[in-house]
């Protein structure tokens, strides 16, 4: 233990700092993250995140996988938003191979990506509430997430790791009552969100716990290449769906939610979280529009290429994941395996900002700030 002397005006106080390991087996590090923190009393003076407990050599593995085989591995990056994860990779390969996927496929992809965005934000808000000690909203949100997962299961056959977006189309067609189910989900999600707003987000204790905690200024957020709700919570209006509309996102009317000064300070934990709550509503709007516009007929598998062999070249393709920008840099050598697949993992990049924003707060705040960044260790460690 190192010893430091802190100067106060009434003399020298011999104050000893405590080094504390938070994790990898701590109840609220959202996985196997280890934070080495330095405490003075209860004030955090230094944070060093240690990662790699879940390292699976994803990028190296992909170099010996055929393109369709990469998709199950990509599912396991951010395992609570698998649909969104598959999309940029599939899109990149399709662009390289010049495949124009059918309209219907695009709409289904949008609907599923947005549903998965809702599911992801539900988990983010729920676990954030649990970090603050509120256990009940967690289960309300999980109850709704179950409906989304059921729809995914009836469509793709799996509940968590879907392997559903394939190069050139989708693995299966949607079930017959898909539209009704999706609209029903939206209804429930809206009702629960309203309830969570009153039970958790509106609670004075929760507001006191989160506002002015972990303030991330916009310039720091940009310098650290943050994206997603972490960046938007700091007031930067940057959403790939609006900024560089991919797929068919330019056809929908939705807002980019940013943090405001209304209750907290721009960029604090409260704002990051309220952005997620608002984004769920925007996703609901996108799904409603997509369901209204979606063509009813069409084969989702008609554009499957016989052999997935992109021509020699390289591409960077990214999409707006629930947690931020997920991109894949793909180098193809003309064979049936990627020459190199570099991923730009959202959680990893967002986590890097943690030591910047939690110095000077208390241990309890540190946990909340970590929760507000919303990381998934599968993606951080890859």
């Amino acid at each position, binding site marked *: 233990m190192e010893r430091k002397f802190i100067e106060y005006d009434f003399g020298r106080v011999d104050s000893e700092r*405590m080094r*504390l390991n938070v994790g990898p087996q*701590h*109840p*609220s590090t959202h996985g196997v993250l280890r934070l080495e923190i330095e405490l003075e009393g*209860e004030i955090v003076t230094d944070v060093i995140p240690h990662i790699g407990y879940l390292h699976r050599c994803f990028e190296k593995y992909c170099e010996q996988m055929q393109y369709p085989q990469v998709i199950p591995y990509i599912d396991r990056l951010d395992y609570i938003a698998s649909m969104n994860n598959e999309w940029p990779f599939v899109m990149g390969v399709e662009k390289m191979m010049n495949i124009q996927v059918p309209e219907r496929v695009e709409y289904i992809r949008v609907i599923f990506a947005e549903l998965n965005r809702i599911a992801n934000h539900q988990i983010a808000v729920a676990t954030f*509430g*649990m*970090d*603050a*000690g*509120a*256990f*009940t909203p967690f*289960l*309300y949100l999980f*109850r709704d997430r179950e409906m989304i997962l059921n729809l995914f299961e009836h469509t793709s056959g799996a509940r968590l790791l879907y392997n559903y977006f394939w190069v050139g189309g989708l693995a299966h067609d949607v079930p017959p009552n898909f539209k009704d189910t999706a609209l029903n989900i939206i209804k429930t999600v809206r009702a629960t969100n309203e309830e969570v707003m009153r*039970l*958790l987000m509106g*609670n004075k*204790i*929760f507001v*006191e*716990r989160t506002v002015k905690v972990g303030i991330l200024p916009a310039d720091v957020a940009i310098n650290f290449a943050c994206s997603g709700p972490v960046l938007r919570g700091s007031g930067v209006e940057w959403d790939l769906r609006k900024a560089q509309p991919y797929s068919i996102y330019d056809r929908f009317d939705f807002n980019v939610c940013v943090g405001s000064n209304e209750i907290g300070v721009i960029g604090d934990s409260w704002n990051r979280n309220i952005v997620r709550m608002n984004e769920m509503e925007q996703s609901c709007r996108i799904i409603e529009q997509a369901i209204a516009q979606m063509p009813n007929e069409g084969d989702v598998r008609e554009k499957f290429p016989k052999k997935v062999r992109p021509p020699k070249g390289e591409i960077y393709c990214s999409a707006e994941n629930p947690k931020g920008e997920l991109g894949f840099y793909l180098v193809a050598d003309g064979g049936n395996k990627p020459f190199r697949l570099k991923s730009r993992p959202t959680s990893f990049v967002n986590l890097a900002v943690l030591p910047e924003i939690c110095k000077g707060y*208390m*241990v*309890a*705040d540190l*946990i909340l700030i970590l929760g507000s960044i919303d990381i998934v260790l599968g993606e951080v460690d890859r």
Partner: protein
Amino acid sequence: MGNFVFDLIGKNIVAALVICIIPLVFILPYALIAILGELKIGAWMQDRVGPMRTGWKGVLQPVAEVVKLLQKEDITPTIANKPLFNLAPFIVFIGAFAAFAVLPFSEKFIPSGINLGLFFVFAVGSFAVIGIVMGGWASNNKYSLLGAMRSVAQIISYELPAGMVFLSIATIAGTLDMQTIILNQSGPIWNWYIFGGPQGGAIKFLFIPFFVILFIVYLISSLAETNRTPFDIPEGESEIVAGYHTEYSGMKFAMFFMAEYANMYVVSAIIVILFLGGWSSPFGTSFMDGPIWGIFWMVGKAFFFVFVQIWLRWTLPRLRVDQLMYLGWKVLLPLSIACFMAIAFLAMIN
């Protein structure tokens, strides 16, 4: 009750032991019911069904948990300070257990009818602090130490508003004896202290808001003293794992657990005694009143507040340490002092 046992057995050491054991006989089944209530009410509030496997609809779950804790391996960390580590759960339990000595159950049933019941409860509450510090320090775990430090700061801070509430009621009742306080409130429902107490005639209705504020102040500070949500920061599981009992397992953990639940009853009973007429019937002295009904009313009312504590636990997030201190020193203490002054004025004009 003491006299009754002395009459039955004779004034000897056996009788004294019997009297000592009576609260324990109450605590054990009560703790089982409270644990089941915590599990089931928590589950129902979250749209779950809760434990369903042990017994009919899972009613034997707390028994199973107790049996599990009893037969679990009792782990003492190698680097822990063994004597203090082993002693701490007992000290904590003494604090909760001793308070039962003066808690009345009915007109005729009170383990010890000392004249200073309220003061006694207030004093033995401090044993828990020593036990928690002991356990937290002896575990030789940084999380435990943090939890113990938080706990001590919290309990000591919240003893002040609680003390002001005790003082207010003692002033208006003119006694520290719990039985007398309850007897004062017997009769119709507006004789309860939450409605201004029996004294004062019509003018007392002006003072009802102060009594209600005192009631809320004590409700909040009792939550803090028993480390319940939203003041469960000493054992806040998302921050400091389990706080001061991180390293405890098996029977010793069960002691902490029992002490927490026993404390829940103690503070609920005190709320009932101070503000809601204790064992007296809400329908006046004529209807459903008497020693046996007294037990029903006392335990029933106290269980309602145990339920309120469980209810709050499954509703609220947790406060932070500095907010807790803010609430204790800058909100509850001034409020309680103001109310105390008002009630002292009421006591004076009577």
